[in-house]
């Protein structure tokens, strides 16, 4: 499970059948200082997140378990909205 910032939205009408209606968003993973770390990935969203939001997400097979239909080829899902996070005594402001 990781921290990220939502940076964009993606639309795909032709997609695996069990994924209809699930929002797809671009997320930038973050490090312990709230700075960008690693490549942007596309994730499903299990909450009502949107661009600019500070979120946490899950990768791997477990990502599919957060989707309405769990037998789907999904390897990244946003599972929570972060109101605030503190790291090394400092409040993160991504």
């Amino acid at each position, binding site marked *: 499970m990781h921290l990220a910032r939502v940076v964009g939205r993606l639309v795909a009408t032709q997609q695996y059948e069990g*994924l209809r209606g699930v929002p*797809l968003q671009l997320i930038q993973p973050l490090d312990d200082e709230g700075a960008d770390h690693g490549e942007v990935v596309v994730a499903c969203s299990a909450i009502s997140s949107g661009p600019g939001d500070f979120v946490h997400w899950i990768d791997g097979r477990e990502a599919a378990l957060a989707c309405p239909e769990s037998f789907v080829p999904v390897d990244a899902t946003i599972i929570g909205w972060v109101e605030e996070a503190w790291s090394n005594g400092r409040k993160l402001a991504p």
Partner: protein
Amino acid sequence: MLIGKVVGSVVATRKDEKLEHRKLLLVQVHDQHNKPKEQYVVAIDSVGAGHGDMILYATGSSARQTTVTEGRPCDAVIMAVVDSWDLGGDNVYEKWKS
């Protein structure tokens, strides 16, 4: 999931029997700005993607969670054909414009 472009296909006669009748597509990975990377992956198609399509693919054991790939050797599956995406409010890719 990562964004990629279908740039070709891979055909192999001698292969694991569980890969038979599965479309193997050659995908070039693109970044969020739609810039191609020197990184390629061969993925099984589960949505009817074609040459030139921008697609999303899933990796790892998630890739086997489709009716096309379940119980088969597969570590990358194309699970969506991308229509469009935006980044920071700006449109980066629009299928119907290109």
